């Protein structure tokens, strides 16, 4: 994997990303490497890179040519011999799968790739390749600054947590910096449990060193010498790549004692979760890291003051931490200039579910849902009309067409009773039954509740029952109306009586489903659409 190419030798790229592999990229890679060992005229080396995020084109093969990288995809094993030729190493060919220059593809060209700048471009575990693409520039700058200067830059950049709650990262860091202690921790939340999201995974598989760099900078900024990446166990490939990257970074002197000959030290370890969605909630995560059941802790105390093993701890999402290096290397203003309102910088957007073009794109905040669904996703994969989209994971609202003009912006989403969350967008065609989706939201809460508080633990069980009653009752019957009222009361109880956003936000998908799609529950569309959708942007803060 870590093959250094001799000078002048062309490189051929095939992704090692989980989704690319699920579409057969390992087989293509094996085929190509066999071909390269047989065909002596074709002088090239195979590099396994992250994915460019255009999953409908995976397995994508990229060939380095004098014109730039030329893309072919989706490639099958039988295409390999026709694609890997002496001619294709020299430029664009007329092979039917040839897509032209990768960077010129509309999907790539229109993006603002700041955090994902190197994902898909480089060999993820090759430190030299990372450095030759501006890697560790941010760290170099950080090493010349005081902790307060670093924290101030993060504040000025406007970066807000990408894990869902959108809390300003710089303010969190300031609290940890201002809490004096011998031992502090940086914890990366890589639990990425939301359906429809894979940005963390793609980044960890495609450019783990940028996450490592972000964590080292965070350590220097707040005075922490130990970092943990809490990775969900559902990500075996990311696990492997992270461990390889950490080993490489250590060998190259970026982790361990006296980083880059400075007085700073930082150790980093990956810890695996064990299939509990709630462990993505930061205090549950800390309990889990301490070796306990993942029961959510009451706040205060904030983890920034009493976090892991009772010590001051920064808990940040993968993307938040991976956005730090570019802020330090290009400056806070550069980053802040992207975006709108209070949503500064860029968001890795994940288009998932029933879409023609599923994948990841990184854009400045401000694009509308409609543009994403039409221009990028290209409508449904099933070629049917889109009926509903769920944004922000299982605790996010379902949105009908009337809401698709909403811009991607934390405040705009909160205004319509929705959340942007981790930027995942799941698309459903017109065969979806929204009553079933509402029921699932409650069911998911039953399965994943940590059990600490009653509104969530018992409320969700009741929620499933009540939704069943609504579905089963005859139209216009008293029972149906009463069950609907009961459901709304239950949602209120869960929203206001739960300790964390698991119970507190499960009402979001439920209420939006019944309000926007009452006909799926057997109510007339002209029913009472007035049920309150409260704005709830920082529910777990």
């Amino acid at each position, binding site marked *: 994997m870590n093959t250094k190419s001799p000078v002048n030798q062309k490189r051929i790229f095939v992704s090692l990303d*989980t*989704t690319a592999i699920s579409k057969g990229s390992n087989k293509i890679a094996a085929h190509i490497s066999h071909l390269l060992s047989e065909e002596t005229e074709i002088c090239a080396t195979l590099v396994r890179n992250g994915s460019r995020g255009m999953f409908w084109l995976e397995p994508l093969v990229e060939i380095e040519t004098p014109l730039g990288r030329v893309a072919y995809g989706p490639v099958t094993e039988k295409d390999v011999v026709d694609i890997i030729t002496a001619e294709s190493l020299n430029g664009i060919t007329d092979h039917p799968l040839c897509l032209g220059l990768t960077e010129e593809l509309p999907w790539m060209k229109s993006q603002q790739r700041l955090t994902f700048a190197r994902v898909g471009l480089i060999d993820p575990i090759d430190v030299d390749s990372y450095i030759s693409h501006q890697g560790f520039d941010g760290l170099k700058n950080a090493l010349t600054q005081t902790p307060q200067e670093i924290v101030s830059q993060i504040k000025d950049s406007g970066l807000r947590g990408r894990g869902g709650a959108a809390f300003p990262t710089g303010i969190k860091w300031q609290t940890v910096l201002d809490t004096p202690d011998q031992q502090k921790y940086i914890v990366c939340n890589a639990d990425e449990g939301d359906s*429809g999201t894979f940005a963390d995974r793609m980044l960890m598989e495609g450019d783990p060193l940028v996450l490592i760099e972000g964590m080292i900078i965070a350590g220097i900024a707040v005075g922490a010498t130990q970092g943990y990446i809490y990775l969900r166990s*559902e990500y075996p490939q990311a696990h492997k790549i992270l461990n390889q990257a950490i080993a490489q970074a250590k060998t190259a002197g970026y982790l361990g004692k006296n980083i880059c000959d400075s007085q700073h030290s930082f150790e980093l370890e990956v810890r*695996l979760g064990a299939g509990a969605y709630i462990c993505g909630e930061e205090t549950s995560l800390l309990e889990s890291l301490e070796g306990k059941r993942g029961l959510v802790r009451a706040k205060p105390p904030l983890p920034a003051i009493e976090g892991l093993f009772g010590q001051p701890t920064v808990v940040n999402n993968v993307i938040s931490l991976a956005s730090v290096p570019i802020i330090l290397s290009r400056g806070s203003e550069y980053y802040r200039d992207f975006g709108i309102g209070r949503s500064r910088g860029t968001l890795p957007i994940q288009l998932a*579910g*029933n879409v023609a073009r599923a994948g990841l794109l990184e854009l400045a905040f401000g694009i509308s849902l409609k543009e994403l669904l039409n221009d990028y996703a290209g409508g449904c994969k099933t070629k049917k009309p889109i009926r509903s989209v769920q944004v922000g994971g299982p605790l996010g609202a379902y949105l009908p067409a009337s809401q698709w003009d909403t811009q991607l912006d934390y405040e705009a989403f909160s205004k319509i009773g929705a959340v942007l969350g981790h930027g995942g967008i799941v698309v459903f065609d017109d065969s979806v039954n929204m009553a079933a989706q509402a029921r699932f939201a409650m069911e998911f809460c039953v399965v994943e509740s940590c059990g600490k508080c009653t509104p969530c633990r018992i409320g969700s069980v009741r929620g499933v029952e009540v939704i069943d009653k609504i579905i089963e009752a005859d139209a216009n019957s008293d029972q149906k109306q009463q069950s609907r009222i009961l459901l709304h009361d239950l949602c209120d109880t869960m929203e206001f009586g739960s300790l964390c956003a698991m119970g507190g936000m499960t009402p979001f998908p439920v209420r939006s489903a019944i309000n926007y799609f009452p006909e799926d529950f057997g109510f007339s569309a002209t029913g009472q659409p007035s049920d309150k959708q409260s704005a709830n942007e920082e529910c777990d803060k």
Partner: protein
Amino acid sequence: MSAITSADIDKINDILQKNKTLPGAMLPILHAIQDELGFVPDESVPMIASALNQSRAEVHGVISFYHHFLTKKPGQHQISICRAESCQSMGSGALESKIKQRLKLDYHQTSADGQYSLSPVYCLGNCACSPAIRINDDIHGEMTMEKFENLLDSMVTFNLELK
């Protein structure tokens, strides 16, 4: 109750020796045991408890909290079907019923011949290729019954090769 061998006990002791001084050693230990033996046998509970200075109830409480840890030996091929929303949008509900029928298994069951076990999972991060399933450490996307049959065939071949 599972019968585990004395070699297994040695392995567990080895894991405990290596990991017990880690900060927050519980999960790394449980993972290591499950990676080694395929599950976390009941016999290991008192061993872990004494190595970590905790009660058996505490150890048991942790194991039972996490969906990932198994207390019984799973099938040789552990099949997980993604039940989360993105996969639902691409028909995972129907796929799930068909796979259950095909394997004659419900969730959390293992086939009598010890070949397959079936479990639900909530998102594999493969939502760009829904519906997704996981078989041991391999993730497969855009799953259909036809593809699933092919995967089953390849598992049978794999078993024959092993014999």
